[in-house]
C-alpha cells in the first residue's frame, strides 16, 4: 500500500517535471538596425515569443513583423508594405539547437554559446548559426542574449535602387529573452 502510494507520487512528479521542461517567454526583445552614411534605421519589438526546450536543448523564436516599432511612422509602414510584405509573411521565425552542454540547475554564465538551426523570413528558409550568451540565474530563470547579422539578399528582401544608399545590405540584430 505504502509502496503503491510512493510509486504514484514518483509518477506524478515525473509528469509534472515533464511539463516544466519548456521555458517560455512572450516578451523577448528584438532590435534590428541598418547603418549607412546616409541614414540610420532602427526598430524594436518587445513581443517576440520564444520556447526553450531544455530536454533537447532547442530554442525557437517567433516574432510578428508588424510588432516592430520604428521612430518614423512612414518607415514602419514601408517596412511592412514594401520590404517584408508582412500581410503575406507575418512572422520571422528561428529554431536552433544549442551546440554546447548547459547545466540549467546551477547559476552560471555561458559565453560563446552557438545555436545552429534555420531562420524563416519573408517566406525564405535559410540555415543560420548565431552566437549567444546564456545566463542561468539563482532562481533558475534563464536569460539568452545574442547579436548577429542577417543579409537581406538571403531572404529575397529587395531594396529599390532609389534608396540603396539609405538601407544597408546587412542588418544587425540584437536579441534578449528572459525565460521563466
Amino acid at each position: 500500500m505504502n509502496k503503491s502510494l510512493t510509486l504514484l507520487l514518483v509518477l506524478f512528479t515525473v509528469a509534472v517535471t515533464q511539463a516544466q521542461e519548456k521555458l517560455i517567454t512572450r516578451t523577448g526583445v528584438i532590435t534590428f538596425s541598418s547603418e549607412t552614411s546616409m541614414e540610420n534605421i532602427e526598430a524594436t519589438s518587445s513581443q517576440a515569443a520564444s520556447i526553450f526546450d531544455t530536454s533537447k536543448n532547442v530554442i525557437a523564436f517567433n516574432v510578428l513583423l508588424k510588432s516592430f516599432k520604428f521612430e518614423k511612422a512612414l518607415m514602419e509602414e514601408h517596412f511592412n508594405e514594401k520590404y517584408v510584405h508582412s500581410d503575406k509573411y507575418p512572422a520571422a521565425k528561428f529554431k536552433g539547437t544549442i551546440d554546447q552542454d548547459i547545466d540549467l540547475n546551477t547559476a552560471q554564465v555561458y559565453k560563446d554559446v552557438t545555436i545552429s538551426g534555420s531562420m524563416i523570413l519573408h517566406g525564405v528558409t535559410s540555415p543560420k548559426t548565431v552566437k549567444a550568451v546564456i545566463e542561468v540565474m539563482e532562481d533558475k530563470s534563464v536569460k539568452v542574449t545574442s547579436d548577429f547579422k542577417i543579409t537581406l539578399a538571403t531572404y529575397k528582401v529587395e531594396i529599390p535602387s532609389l534608396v540603396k544608399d539609405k538601407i544597408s545590405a546587412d542588418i544587425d540584430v540584437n536579441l534578449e529573452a528572459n525565460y521563466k
Partner: protein
Amino acid sequence: MKKCLAVLCLIVCALSVYAQEPANNQQDDDLFAELDDLTIESDNEVIATFKSTRLLIGQSTERVKQRQLHFRISHVFGKIKGIDNFFGLDQINNMHISLEYGLTDFIQLGIARSNKPDKTYSNSIKVSALRQRDGTSPFPFALSYFGSLDIKTREYFPEARNKNFSGRLEYVNQLLISRKFNKDLSLQVSPTFVYRNLTETENDPNAIFSIAMGGRYLISRSISLNAEYYYTLPTFDTHDASKNTLAVGMDIETGGHVFQLYFTNAFALHPGKFAINQSGDFFNRDINFGFSILREFSFSKKSK
C-alpha cells in the same frame, strides 16, 4: 483496494507517457505551432491604404501618427496651353504650405496657407474614428472626419467688407470613407460640406454639398496611379457640372518623402475652394500641372 491503486497507477502512467509523447515526437512545426499560440497578436489594422494623407489634392483616410510631423509644399502651375508659357510652368498659380502633427494616432492637427486667391489660412483637425481591420475581428472600411476653419486674409474692398471678420471665415467638413480592396487597389468616398459666411455675389450659395470619389492603384512598390473627382450637388443656380474638380496623377514614394504629381482643373489647393464647383473646365483644356512634396519628421521619444 490494491486493484484500485494499480488501475490508478496505470492511468497515471498512461498520462505521463501521453505527456511525454509530444515532447519526443516533436516535429519542427509543432514547436512553431506552439509559438504561434504564444505570440501576442498584432492589432491587424490594415495599413498603407494610401501612400499619403492626401489622395492628390483632397484628404485621404491616412493620418499623421502620434508625434510625427508632416511638412508639405504643394504647387499648381498655370494652364497648360502651349510652349509660350512653357506649358504653364512659367506661372505658379498656387503655393500651398501645410504642417500636420499627430497629437495621438487618432487625432491630427494641421495648419496650412494657400496664397491664391484669398491668402487663406486653414486650421484643421482630422479624427480617425474607425480603421479597416482584418484577422479575427475584421472591419470593412476606415472612417475619418476632416474639419477645417479657413480664414481669408486678403484685402477686400470696400472697407466695410474688409473689416467684416466673420465674412472672412469658411468651414469645411468632410467624412472620409475608404477601403483597401487588395494590396494594389484602394477606393474612397468623401461627402463634403462647405459653408462660407460671405460670398462674392448674392447668387453664390453659402452652403455647398459635394461628394468626392477617388482611389489609387499601385503599379510598382513605390508608385501608384491616383484619381479623384469632386461632384458638387446642383443645389444652386450657378452650378456648372464642367466646373467640378478632377485630378489625375501619381504618388512616388522614396523612403522619407512622398512626391505627388497631378493634372487638375483646380487652381486652389484647399478644399474650401476646390470643392465648391469653381474649377476650370477640364475637358476644355483648363488643365494645370501640380505637385506636392511631403517630408515626415519624427518627435517620437524613441528618437535619439
